[in-house]
Structures are given as C-alpha cells and as structure tokens.
C-alpha cells in the first residue's frame, strides 16, 4: 500500500472513505491533503474562518448598501454632484485591496472594523453605479405621467422610480456580494481572519488551499442566490416578463 497516496481522489472514495478513514488521514499528507478523507476529518477547522468570512461579507454589504443608496438618491436629486460622487467611489475602488487593508491598519488598528471599512468602500462603486443607472433608465414619459397624475416628487421617487429601478439595483448588489467575498479573502492582512487567512497560513498544502477556496466560491454563490431570492420577492411584477 506504499503508492496509495497517488490513488486518484475518486478511487479513494470506495477505498476507505465510508468504512475506515483512520488510515486515510495518515496517508493523506503524502498526497498533500488533496483527498476527501483529509477534508472530511479537518472540515471543522474551517467552520470558524468560514463564519468570520460570512460576517466580513454581510456586514460591509449591508452598510455599503445603505451608504451607496443614500449617495445615489442625493445625486439623483442634486445632479451637479454626480460626477464628483462617481469619481470618488471609482477612486476608492481603484486602491489595491491589500494596500488598502495595510494602510488603514496603521490608522484604525488591527481587526474586524478595519476590514469592514475597506470592504464597505469597495461595495460603493458597484452599488452606487447601479442605483444611479436604474434611476436614470426610468422612461421620462413614465415620470411625466406620474407628474400629470399629481404625484409629489417624493411619491414619484418611492412609487415610480425606485420600484422600476429595483432589478438594476439588485443586479449591482449581486455583483457587490460576490466581489466582497473575493476581496474579504485578503482581510487577514488587516488581522480580521476569514478563509484567506487559512489559505495564506499553509499555501503549499493543496488540501488546505482547495478546501478554503471552494468554501469561498460556495459562499459567493450562496450570497448571490440569496440576493436573487430577495429580488424575486420584492419585484413580483418581473416574473410576468421573461428576463
């Protein structure tokens, strides 16, 4: 059984994955941890980083959504601000993430808060731009009709423009969700942990790298799916039209 470490992953499934995994865990380092036995035995080690990663994704998304939407509504009302806001959020997005984490770390200290500030900054351009585009794409005729019916400016915004912009807004939120999960992979530079920290702690061990990366991809997919479900719930009229 000396060469068993080179057995492909699928063959090991039948080997001793279900019956006796004690030997598998020992042999696995020979295969650099890239076998289901190792992953199953050590999966619990990844639950804490996964939970940190979930928080690192959801908290910035929520804060970022509120701030970016407020900015967009302000810019929608006072159009003169539009180029300034776009330049501002675009510049934030251009800063390389690792550099952003480490520079901010010298100002706000290590930890969760620093990572949240950075990740919130990155969500801004994605959400702001989509809210803005969504509001601008509302047909002028529709707004005219609403005006003609005697709706006030506030009513037009909340009853006509925002509902019509919802699909575009949610699309921005989806993009922001998956990219936040990706950028949160570097949050360990700010001392905030997450799955990226696991990858970085042992980059030569394939089992570790694959497990943490796959968890990140799955997290991104799940978050996108949740946003999609919420979008369906908030825009029932969209279901009537094929998208």
């Amino acid at each position, binding site marked *: 059984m000396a060469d068993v470490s080179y057995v492909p992953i699928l063959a090991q499934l039948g080997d001793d994955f279900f019956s006796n995994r004690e030997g598998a865990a020992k042999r696995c380092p020979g295969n*650099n941890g890239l076998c289901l036995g190792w992953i199953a035995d050590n999966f619990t080690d990844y639950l804490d980083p996964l939970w940190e990663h979930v928080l690192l994704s959801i908290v910035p998304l929520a804060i970022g959504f509120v701030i970016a939407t407020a900015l967009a509504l302000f810019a*929608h009302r006072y*159009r003169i601000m539009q180029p300034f806001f776009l330049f501002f959020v675009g*510049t934030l997005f*251009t*800063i*390389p*993430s*690792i*550099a*952003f984490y*480490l*520079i901010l770390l*010298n100002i706000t200290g290590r930890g969760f808060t620093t990572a949240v500030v950075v990740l919130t900054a990155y969500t801004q351009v994605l959400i702001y731009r989509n809210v803005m585009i969504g509001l601008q794409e509302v047909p*002028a*005729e529709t*707004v*005219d009709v609403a*005006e003609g019916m005697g709706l006030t*400016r506030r009513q*037009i915004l909340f009853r006509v423009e925002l509902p019509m912009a919802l699909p575009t807004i949610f699309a921005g939120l989806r*993009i922001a969700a*998956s*990219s936040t*999960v*990706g950028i949160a*992979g*570097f949050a360990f*530079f700010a001392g905030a942990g997450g*799955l*990226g920290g696991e*990858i*970085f702690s042992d*980059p*030569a*061990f*394939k089992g570790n*790298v*694959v497990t*943490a*990366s796959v968890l*990140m*991809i799955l997290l*991104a*997919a799940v978050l*996108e799916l949740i946003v999609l479900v919420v979008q369906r719930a908030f825009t029932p009229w969209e279901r009537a039209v094929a998208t």
Partner: protein
Amino acid sequence: MSQVVAALGPFGDAFDFILHQRESQAGTVQVGGPGEIWELSWTHLKLSLAATAIATLIALPIGLWLGHIGRYQFLATSTSNIGRAVPALGLIVFFIAFLGVGFVNVCAALVLLAIPPIITNTYVGIRGVDRETVDAANGSGLTGMQVASKVELPLAMPTIMGGIRIAFVSVIATATVAPLANVDTLGRPIVSPNVYGTAGQLAACIVVALLTFAADAVLAAIQRAVTPRGIKIQANQGRLRGRVPFVSPKRSIQPT
C-alpha cells in the same frame, strides 16, 4: 526633516524606507531605498503588463467573435461573474501548488484573472453598437470580417478599453501576492515584514497604490484617445440634456 518624519508616525517611517536604504530586521542585509523599490516596481509592472497583454490577446478575439455572431450571451456575461467569485489568492496559490513557482506560472494565474472582464466588456461593447449602423454596413456590401473590424470594433473601443483597464488594475493589485511564487514584486515587503519591517510593508503598500493610480490614469487617457469622435459628440449632447433639471414644474411637454 526628522521631526516631520516623526510627526507622520508609521507613514513617515514608510517614506523614509522608500528614500533611504536601511538594515533589515535581522540586521544581515540592506533593504529599502529607491534602488530596491524601483527594482520591485519594475518586476511588478513587467508581470502585470505581460499578464494583461496575453489576456487581451486571448479574450479580445473571443469577445469580438461572440459579440459579432450575437450568440452565447449567457457564456460571455457569466464568465465575469465566475471570475469575480473565484478568490484571487486561492487561484494563485492553486497554480503554485500544482505547477510550481516562477514567473510563468504566476503570470498564467494572473492571465486567468484578467480574461473575464475583457471578454465581457468586449461582448457588451460589440452588442451595444447600433444595429442600424451594422445593417447599413452590411447593406453597403461589407463582408462579415470588415463589419467586425471596421465598424463594430472601433465603435466598441471605449467599452473594450474599459475592460482592459479594469483587468490591468486588478492584475496590479493581485500581483502583490506573487512573492508566494518566488517572484519578487512589490508584494515582497508586504508578505515578509519579518525582513523588511512594518515600515517596508507600509512603504510597499503606498507604492502599489500609487502604481495602480498611475496605470489607471494612463489607461483612462488611452480610452479617451481611442474613442471615435462621433461617440464623443454624442456623449457631449447627452451631457447637455442631463443638465436640464429632471423634475421641473415648468418643463415643457415634449412630443414623443
């Protein structure tokens, strides 16, 4: 001078690291100073340029072809979704773990990161070309190849350059983890603070950020330069329209 440096705290120390050579943390070698910073920046830039150029050579024809035939929209737009979800760090480490260290391998990983935004933007740009314009070109007897290269490509150029710009900026940002593959980019002081010290780490961060801004500005200028004059005029007219207050009680009713 030293008072100014002290007042800036860690940032002053970082600027000092950029300007003057010093002993490493263990005191065995000399680190920092303009020479080493320049050397690391040059490798960083070389790696990023190579990866973005190769990615453009691969992605541009694919996006152009998909956009020209106007099919497989799902494929073209979902590549960028998948690209965003794949963690950059995971991808690079994955490449190193399976292919080994070195410039070529880390470059290949960066190429994979740069391809999705270029494909998507090229596709979107080509599809965004006015259908009537394309019909007119077809009607004038241009072949499919000519329509693609002489009509669709120039008109889509701003969007395509936008994709290359996004790709290049994210490649520069990600090339920071290349030292894991033994390629000494500006990420070296960032991942090895035990040699370079926290001042070196912060200094490298500042230089990477400046490099990104410079690259972004250069590509923005190129993007403006390749924008056909007709599109610029159209955009200006659009901006003029935008200046009219959106909901104004005095707004005239426009004929539709």
